[in-house]
């Protein structure tokens, strides 16, 4: 992070932690504070966080969610007259949204409302997948890598079996069963089939770390297995877990897209970003905006989540803290 020293506002974030030469006063920061500090200084992560927050706020305030209304007056369900061939009105007359900022589809639905609704649903599914995958993958990988022996054999054979079935087929079956019961269940169900990669990575990390001398030192002290796992090994795998989790969130969006394409994901009339793309893919030539808007949102969400993950990984790594300003 040596790049932080460039640019004019260098003195901006000097905190009252500087060492007073006379008294050798060093203000102790907790580990959490240091992690937060490093995260807040990570530019890409801040950019990603800003983008993601903007998308979340936009999606939920515009058309509202559940009983809460938003500031956008058109519904994603209501059809209407197609104006000007459904072309987007965003910024066509100066800096204004216009009647249909993202355009309209062929039956006159407001596409801005549709994309906002799709974003809401995709975010929910993606984050649930991310959480479920991370929890399951970490738990199973940690147990297998730490305890080895029979535990490992059983858990890893289950993992292998799940990996040998293509995720999409697995997800399609699960989605066919749970898909209609609601978006939360769909997310959980998809998370249950996507944890395998993370489990393998975490297991590998645990296998390597459990042989390290600092773990042996902890054993020599008489530290319990639980404490060794949570205090000594897990913090050293945070990087892998976070990167994989953010990738899982990005992959979750795409998996949901693929399922919607097969008609198994979000059920119409509800929409997700994936189902929007698939529904309007034939309009690619005649009405390209129907394809572009959800695409842009998918890419923006996936990228910003990855940047945030990158920043978190760096923040959790104390070796990144090289500059002492």
């Amino acid at each position, binding site marked *: 992070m040596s790049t932080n020293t460039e640019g004019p506002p260098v003195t901006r974030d000097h905190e009252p932690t500087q060492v007073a030469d006379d008294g*050798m006063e*060093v203000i*102790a*920061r907790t*580990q959490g504070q240091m992690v937060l500090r490093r995260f807040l200084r990570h530019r890409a992560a801040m950019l990603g966080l800003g983008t993601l927050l903007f998308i979340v706020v936009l999606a939920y305030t515009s058309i509202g969610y559940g009983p809460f209304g938003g500031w956008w007056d058109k519904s994603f369900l209501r059809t209407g007259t197609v104006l000007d061939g459904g072309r987007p009105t965003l910024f066509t007359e100066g800096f204004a949204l216009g009647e249909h900022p993202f355009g309209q589809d062929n039956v006159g639905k407001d596409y801005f409302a549709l994309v906002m609704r799709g974003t809401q649903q995709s975010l929910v599914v993606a984050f649930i997948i991310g959480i479920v995958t991370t929890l399951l993958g970490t738990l199973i990988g940690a147990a297998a890598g730490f305890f080895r022996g029979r535990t490992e054999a059983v858990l890893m054979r289950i993992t292998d079996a799940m990996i040998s079935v293509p995720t999409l087929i697995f997800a399609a079956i699960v989605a066919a069963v749970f898909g209609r019961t609601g978006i939360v269940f769909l997310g959980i169900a998809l998370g249950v089939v996507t944890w395998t990669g993370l489990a393998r990575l975490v297991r590998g990390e645990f296998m390597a770390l459990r042989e*390290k*001398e*600092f773990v*042996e*030192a*902890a*054993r*020599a*002290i*008489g*530290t*319990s297995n639980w*404490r060794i796992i949570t*205090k*000594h090994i897990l*913090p*050293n795998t*945070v990087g892998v877990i976070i990167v994989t989790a953010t990738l899982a969130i990005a992959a979750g969006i795409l998996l949901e897209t693929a399922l919607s394409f097969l008609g198994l994901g979000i059920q119409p009339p509800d929409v997700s970003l994936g189902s929007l793309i698939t529904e309007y893919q034939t309009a690619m030539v005649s009405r390209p905006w129907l394809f572009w808007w959800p695409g842009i949102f998918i890419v923006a969400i996936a990228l910003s989540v990855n940047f945030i993950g990158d920043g978190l990984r760096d923040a*959790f790594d*104390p*070796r990144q*803290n090289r500059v002492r300003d």
Partner: protein
Amino acid sequence: MTQTSPAPVSAHDEHVGEHLLEVRDLVMHFPIRGSGFLRRVVGQVQAVSGVSLDLDAGETLGVVGESGCGKSTTGRAILQLHTPTAGSVRWEGKELTELPKQEMQAVRRDLQIVFQDPYASLNPKMPVNDIIAEPLKVHGRYKDGGPARVKELLQLVGLNPEHGNRYPHEFSGGQRQRIGIARALALQPKALILDEPVSALDVSVQAGIINLLEDLQDEFGLAYVFIAHDLSVVRHISDRVAVMYLGKVVETGERDEIYRRPSHPYTQALLSAAPSANPEIEAKRERIILEGDVPSPADPPSGCRFRTRCWKAEEICATEEPELVDRGQGHPVACHFAEELLEVINPDDVTP
């Protein structure tokens, strides 16, 4: 090797029950598994085969031997970090190999270990304060005066307590080893197993750590099992020395006995290999060059394990394993042809 004959005055048998730490016929084998589906055990790496050691309160026992001779494994097996295959480890009369977990916790307060590699033995994600506080927390002693105790420990090992919230990677090798020592001292142990505590360090830093260890010993009456392959360091710090070769103790005794009158051919060869700082003596120094390599511990030679490289080996060495007994040398030696060899090297040459 030992079930049969308690008859000869073996090195330790006379004092059973009187020492702080008694290791008897410790055996540590690691299975070698085949590559097949069933991963059957196809052999054993005999890392430690029947080692007996004693440690009294406040003394330092040096354990020397070349790489792979089982020194570190012995240390870890004493602490039950590896479950020994056979043999007994007694701490203040308690048999550690069969001790319930709860009681073992209590022993761990008294018996701690310092590791060789100061880079691998500290958790890179933990600030130093937390590393040193860890033993206190695990044993429920952090609540009253924990932070103060951590500061005190840092000071004790010669580190600035203000640096406690730094991470291990911000320290040098010698400083990290001091952190490791502070962690080991946190619970006020009676004995430390020092597993090559200085061999990963620069020579100039070694002296500082050795002096620190000696000061701590004087201050707290600690007993040390000092595992090392550096003969001069062992000579400097030890009261008694045990020489190991391929999982066995070949010679043991008072430090000066071993260094001035080594009787086992291996010890003689080992000592003759130590260079002298004095160029005149170094020029005249006679070295015993051993041929070949250390045999594989998975398939050790029959009889005396040193016979494949020994210039004195005869038939009896292949058929009969020499007991570790005093054959008139003044200390126990495991060699059929142990001789009294006076002054291989001038004792004052080997200085740390």
